[in-house]
């Protein structure tokens, strides 16, 4: 039985994956594409928070919100000027997908050029460690857990209790019917992209102080959130949350037991899921 420290660490990892996966599924259910650039918004969010704190001295929670707004806005620009223009009926989502792939390189290069390639640290943000006997946990990691709970609660409220949320859910489930009821699917797409990217950005911002900030940090979280979505089921928001939690815990526990083979184990698991039960835990059954 792995020690408590491992489970807690797994929980922290889960929080990141949950936030990222949630954002990705949100975008997927409205736009119908996997946004490959999702990881880059994570990275950009971390950089915004970094500069907000170190260069402008803005307190951490406000920096997080600012990064959410800025990167969410950037996401909306990408949606409007790239994704919408490339959504060509008849070619499926081919061109959009390739565009989001290309944007990965674009944002990495832009970040590398603008911010430099050296790791940047924010260790001063919430220093200190809480000693709990058999293991300790840094305040920063506690902040990650609290943040995720807050964000998930906020999302629940927005999606279920507000008009915007209603519009989003309607557009996700029945776009044609929704537009008949006067919901502009285009505007909903824009809003959803903004929310999804903001989530990614804030995930990056809250995690920045835990590790470090560099232009390549977005690659692996994107792949991990993809795996989380598969476990939970494409298109299902609950699935994203559950999938993220499972993935995070699994990752830490497997790494503790068999060290570096956890990589292979996770990918094999994903392949098995896709072959045996592609809809994951909560997704709609495959056609």
């Amino acid at each position, binding site marked *: 039985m792995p020690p408590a420290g491992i489970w807690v660490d797994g929980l922290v990892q889960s929080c990141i994956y949950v936030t990222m996966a949630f954002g990705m599924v949100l975008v997927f259910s409205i736009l119908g594409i996997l946004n490959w650039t999702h990881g880059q918004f994570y990275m950009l969010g971390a950089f915004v928070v970094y500069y907000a704190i170190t260069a402008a001295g803005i307190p951490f929670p406000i920096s997080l919100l600012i990064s959410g707004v800025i990167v969410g806005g950037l996401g909306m620009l990408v949606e409007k000027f790239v994704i919408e223009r490339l959504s060509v009926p008849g070619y499926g989502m081919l061109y959009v997908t390739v565009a989001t792939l290309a944007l990965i390189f674009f944002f990495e290069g832009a970040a590398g050029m603008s911010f430099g390639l050296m790791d940047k640290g924010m260790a001063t943000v919430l*220093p200190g460690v809480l000693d709990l006997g058999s293991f300790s946990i840094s305040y920063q990691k506690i902040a990650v857990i609290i943040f995720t709970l807050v964000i998930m609660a906020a999302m629940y409220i927005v999606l279920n209790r507000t008009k915007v949320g209603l519009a989003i859910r309607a557009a996700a489930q029945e776009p044609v019917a929704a537009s008949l009821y006067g919901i502009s699917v285009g505007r909903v797409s824009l809003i959803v992209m903004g929310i999804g990217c903001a989530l990614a950005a804030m995930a990056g911002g809250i995690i920045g102080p835990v590790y*470090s900030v560099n232009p*390549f940090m977005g690659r692996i979280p994107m792949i991990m959130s993809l795996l989380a979505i598969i476990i939970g089921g494409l298109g299902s928001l609950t699935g994203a949350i559950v999938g993220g939690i499972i993935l995070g815990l699994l990752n830490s*526990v497997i790494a503790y037991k068999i*060290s570096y083979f956890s990589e292979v184990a996770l990918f094999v698991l994903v392949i098995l899921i896709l072959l045996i039960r592609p809809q994951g835990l909560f997704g709609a059954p495959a056609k």
Partner: protein
Amino acid sequence: MKKWYNVVAILMATVIVVGVFAIGCAKTAPPQPTGPITINIGEPVALSGSASPWGQIPTPFREAWFEVFNKEGFKIGDQTYNIKLIQVDDQNTAEGGAAAAKQLIFGDKCKFLAGHWTWNFSAISAVTNPAKVIFVTRTGSPDALPASWKGAYDAKTMPYVVFGTPSQDEFTFNCFALVDAFPNYKKLGLLDSTVGKGGPGWVVLQDTLNKAGVRWQSEWFAPGTTDFAPIITRFAEGGCDIVFVAGWIGEYMAFAKQRWEMGYKDMKVACSGPFVSLDMYKAVVGADAFEGAIGAYYDNSQFKKTIVNPKYIAQCQEALKIAAEKTGKPYAYTGEIAWLPSHVLILVQAMQKAGTVDDTDAIMKAIRGGTFDTTIGKWTMSGAETYGSPVVFGTPACLCVIQGGKEVYLSEHPMEPLP
């Protein structure tokens, strides 16, 4: 009639295409210098991609050092020579390395490549050896080891390779230096990414440590890992009180930070490379977690067991000053002292011994088994039996420790020559 206009248009287009080809293939004549003759030395180095901080940060020092060196240059007979450094980005990949080597050899006409430390030894030496270009690199990347250690280096098919930095042995002797510094250690933890694991070097390392009676435990992580909690726990449960991390900067910092936060404040963390930028480590790891961190140290003015030619110490100090002036802020990175300058001095002294700057066969002959006086001391090329050819230089294997936020000399275990 219109048809002919079109045909003419097509012919013109064809001519333009051919012309572009021709221009692309044309060779430009190099300008003839006056005075001292300039020798081009090429350096394939990671200037982009994730390894680039290690490639970019030493650049001010490298340029400064060549400025200092070229003041005097070196003489063969009556002719003075200067050196020009040409850097090409090799992106730390096999293709990038091959392309960089081709660019340097065929485009920039370099007969020597030096200062190489990235992971594409095989790809580059595949280009340099047929072209008879001397390639000064390091041992220790998984393929840059002799066949007897399951590496890819073969003295017979690669007669123009020189191992100017014995990273493989340096790592081993750094372990000894750690044990020297902390004689009451319990167990040494060795951590590397799986990219280094396949390397035959680890087998050699483990044998050597076992023979010397060093207690160790090794763990591996997948490249790109940011969360080291599982591995830290495994080390702690295994009783390791010093962990030697052979990974990249990012992983070292993550490990150091996380072990502190997990409560293992007494676990010492050592890095197999020099500290690239103290500010960065402090910002990422946390100033208090970073105290007591250990890293490789190449400040030749501080060596205690290795004697360095005072002229080279002075040159390096001057270069550090010039680098600080150029960048406009204090320049404390001493890591490059053991690399490019040392490699270049080996080449220069070999050229002087052989009496030529063009005949790479004669220069290689002078290098094999020769003794060279460089920025990190005087060493004799070893490796006749283990590598099949005595082309492996030595190293002081010196370590530093962070005290008060600054690097302080810790210990040194000069490398014993290989058989």
